[in-house]
């Protein structure tokens, strides 16, 4: 995108019918580190890449628990994400207090989207520069939503946002049809593999990624580092043994590389 004379205010339309400030806000999401979500009928998993800016500092928090049955992962301006998480927690707690019942995630997502839309139509505000992957439960089961700075929201079977998320999306596109009936463990494994895809060759360790799960009968919680490392080790030792994909026609690089270390047993992490 290039600078133009219609991009100064969020309240200025371009002749082509675009709001450039909103689109720039969505660029900010693409610059953030990756966040991935996938769901089955009963569980949803969030995973993100969590790199500290230096060895001396702590990791940026990217996954927030909103309620026992709702969680969110953010990508983009994390400060904006924190503020929106606080709003979501507030809405959940108020609903719980009034109705003694958990707020259905689909309704929270709409409230969040309406809040974001306001910022696209006020000259004294700016859009939130953060994309949110909201996961949660309602009467119909488990859900995954993506909330945009534009005020749009979409429901997904699986999705990835942030930098190099395209690699994860490619992997998810191949596998998503199986997710509905996946077990919790397989879902987490798929999430970790997607995270690895975005790392472009860097070794996947639990110190650089965070994983969270919510499901029917399982409250939203972030898995601790040891558990995550064990899960990573488990599937890397087996040699990245992916369950057979129905259509094996794809001769994509990813699949080829996954098969090679399997043959060599415990060989070096995959190269691009």
């Amino acid at each position, binding site marked *: 995108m290039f600078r133009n004379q219609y991009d100064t205010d969020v309240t200025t339309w371009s002749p082509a019918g675009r709001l450039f400030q909103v689109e720039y806000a969505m660029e900010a999401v693409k610059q953030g580190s990756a966040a991935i979500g996938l769901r089955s009928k009963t569980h949803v998993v969030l995973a993100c890449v969590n790199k500290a800016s230096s060895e001396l500092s702590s990791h940026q928090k990217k996954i927030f628990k909103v309620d026992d049955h709702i969680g969110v992962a953010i990508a983009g301006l994390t400060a904006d994400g924190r503020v929106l998480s606080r709003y979501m927690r507030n809405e959940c707690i108020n609903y719980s*207090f*009034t*109705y*003694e*019942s958990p707020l*259905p995630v*689909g*309704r929270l997502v709409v409230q969040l989207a309406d809040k974001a839309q306001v910022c696209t139509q006020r000259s004294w505000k700016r859009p939130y520069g953060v994309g949110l992957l909201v996961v949660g439960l*309602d*009467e*119909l089961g488990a859900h995954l939503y993506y909330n945009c700075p534009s005020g749009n929201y979409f429901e997904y079977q699986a999705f990835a946002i942030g930098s190099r998320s395209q690699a994860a999306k490619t992997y998810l596109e191949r596998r998503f049809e199986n997710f509905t009936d996946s077990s919790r463990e397989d879902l987490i494994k798929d999430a970790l593999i997607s995270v690895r895809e975005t790392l472009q060759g860097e070794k996947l360790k639990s110190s650089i990624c965070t994983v969270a799960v919510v499901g029917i009968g399982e409250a939203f919680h972030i898995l601790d580092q040891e558990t995550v490392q064990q899960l990573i080790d488990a599937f890397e030792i087996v040699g990245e043994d992916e369950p057979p994909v129905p259509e094996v026609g794809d001769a994509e690089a990813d699949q080829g590389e996954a098969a090679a270390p399997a043959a060599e047993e415990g060989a070096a992490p995959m190269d691009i």
Partner: protein
Amino acid sequence: MDQKPFSQGLLSSEADSQRTLYPYVTGTSVVALKYKDGILMAADMGGSYGSTLRYKSVERMKSIGKHSLLGASGELSDFQEILRYLDELILYDNMWDDGNSLGPKEVHSYLTRVMYNRRNKFNPLWSSLVLGGVKNGEKYLGMVSMIGVHFEDNHVATGFGNHLARPILREEWHENLSFEDGVKLLEKCMRVLLYRDRSAVNKLQIAKITEEGVTVSQPYSLKTFWGFSAFSNPTVGAEGSW
């Protein structure tokens, strides 16, 4: 409209006329119990104006949404106001059209908040509410008083029902009552109330709510028995009295 009622005196503030001080047209007890398939609730159709039994066709039980049934005693205009709040609540819930719906537990909590907040402003809705319902196989029966006291139980009653009906229910209620037994039990309670509560009228409705929905019966009367020998010759123990 600005005239203060003479009985209030010349020194009470205008603010008093903006809040409920006492009820005017009231309904008497509501009794309800859980049975095998859901909830049974009974209330008579009387609206008293003080000691006058003024209105005799008042429906004091109404269905709320798909899953709940609300019965009220106390000020009837406040019951109508509560129905308007709930109407709006259910409307917004339906407008989401997303497969989620407010069940009896949620409606009960909401009503508790409404009643309690009004009580805190010293402007209560002068009603006692009974909220029953079934959702996803779970039966729910609760009560909210005019000051926001709320609880859930297997059988509840308001007003005089607490004193006359609940002891009967405590003795005779058990899990998995059949529909016929539940109705018989409720009628037994309502008969006692008819005999002993002066604001009761002999015209009642029984409502049932199950997973399928709400049915409110047509109004009917209970048979009463007055043929006690003491009534046919009341002065036999005290000659000369009447």
